[in-house]
């Protein structure tokens, strides 16, 4: 899933300083699972913004809605009835995708309440870790199911570099060296010989190239 975390309250408050009425919109997708932008966080953020503005003697009206997903027009449409003329701004607690879908759909000032961090998963309750670099051309079959693109601090394809010591990355003693993990895994699977193959430079055009990437499935298109 996409992992995000809330921006500091003061920062969000600063983004809607001039507004008197805002829509605070949560998302029922990834950000609900990573406890950053679900219904609960939406309620908490709206209340905090109201309290802050009350303290400043500049009261704020909030309307809170949590959509099933903000990255799907069918759900984004459901916000329409709340987007009234007197709404000055929309605060989105979705990832960057949701923020943009709201901004594309509604002619309002839309601001993000979260920082979108990475594609990752839950490693323990309250801890999420990055696993995928969204590079567009998966090579996990070459590296024992461990991604060097995003888990190695230098995205090395022929690692490990000289900074790997005691299984840790030179950049942070808390971070496991991805290439140590790859080595251990390949050894356990009896496939160390595969690591002797020189991996050629990666085709980064699959990763980030000339504007947004698009996936089209003609077989399921309706028109």
């Amino acid at each position, binding site marked *: 899933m996409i992992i995000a975390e809330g921006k500091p309250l003061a920062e969000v408050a600063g983004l809607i300083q001039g507004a008197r009425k805002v829509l605070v919109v949560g998302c029922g997708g990834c950000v609900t699972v990573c406890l950053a932008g679900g219904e609960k966080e939406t309620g908490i953020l709206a209340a905090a913004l109201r309290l802050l503005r009350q303290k400043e003697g500049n009261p704020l009206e909030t309307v809170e809605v949590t959509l099933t997903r903000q990255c799907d027009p069918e759900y984004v449409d459901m916000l329409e009835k709340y987007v009234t003329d007197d709404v000055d701004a929309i605060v989105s607690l979705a990832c960057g995708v949701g923020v943009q879908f709201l901004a594309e759909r509604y002619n309002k000032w839309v601001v993000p309440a979260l920082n979108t961090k990475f594609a990752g998963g839950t490693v323990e309750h309250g801890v999420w870790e990055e696993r995928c670099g969204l590079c567009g051309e998966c090579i996990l079959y070459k590296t024992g199911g461990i991604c060097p693109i995003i888990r190695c*601090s*230098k*995205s*090395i*394809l*022929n*690692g*490990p*570099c*000289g*900074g*790997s*010591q*005691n*299984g840790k990355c*030179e*950049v942070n003693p808390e971070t496991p*060296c991805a290439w*140590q993990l790859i*080595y*251990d895994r390949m050894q356990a699977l009896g496939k160390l010989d595969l*690591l*002797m193959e*020189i*991996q*050629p*430079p*990666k085709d*980064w055009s699959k990763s980030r190239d000339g504007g947004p990437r698009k996936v089209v499935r003609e077989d399921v298109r309706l028109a």
Partner: protein
Amino acid sequence: MKTESKLEKLLSQGHFVVSGEIGPPKHANPEGIKKHTAQLKDYVDAMNLTDNQTAIVRLSSIAAGVHVLQAGGEPIIQMTVRDRNRIALQSDLLGAYSLGMRNVLCLSGDHQSFGNHPAAKNVHDVDSLQLIKIVKDLRDEKKFACGEELKGNEPRFFIGAAANPFADPFEFRVLRLEKKINAGADFIQTQCIFDMERFERFMAMVRERGLHKKAHIIAGVMPLKSAKAAKYMQQSVAGMIVPDEIVNRMEKAADPKAEGVAICVEQIKHLKTIEGVAGVHIMAVMWEEIIPTIVKEAGLYPRPKAE
């Protein structure tokens, strides 16, 4: 001979080579580089010019190489893949060759978080191993990384790579060295050696695989200036092993600088006896002027002339 490199010539003639290192300055005045070149040129066969080492902005290694060349030294330009993509790397290789550079050391580069611009975006379009292959393909295939043919003079570099016998996983270090040699490395400069026992084990594995016959392995040494420096290297530098014995010697020394030189000279004399070690690389960080003393005391002076 693959190239016009003086370093290649000396190595291929079987000389035990000595290289040194000059850290370019954090300003635009080349006088320091020229001064160090003048001090070192009769004592080392080639000088590495570091490429924004520890990710701190410095005068570029290629420009520094030009100053070394003009002052009579043999430059080895270091090239990291941290700050440049394959377009810029190849462009700089062409440019460096046109300016007279004949040796290049291909590196990953220290992570930008260690430097003075930790908010910088790193590049890592290719890794150090892929860079080796790019330099080799430019030279031997006359081809750019994209496969396109060079329609003119190709850059003919003597290709260097780094090896760190002190990083982990230890057993893979020799295999990765082999990968670098297979990719095209002609010479290898190792991380600073303090743990001689581990380096000996590394070299035994190197010989077992016959790698010392496929590339020239130059052993890295570093003279320590103080006990504090020894401890810092021991505790704070990733991929480095400094045995307690060396730290203790530095702590007990009445004259730590002299002791640091003595240790370094002992190490060089020992390294000379290890089969497969083709030379030493002396990394005297911020202490370049000590190199002549070390070279003389190690019995490596005068240096051979490349004819």
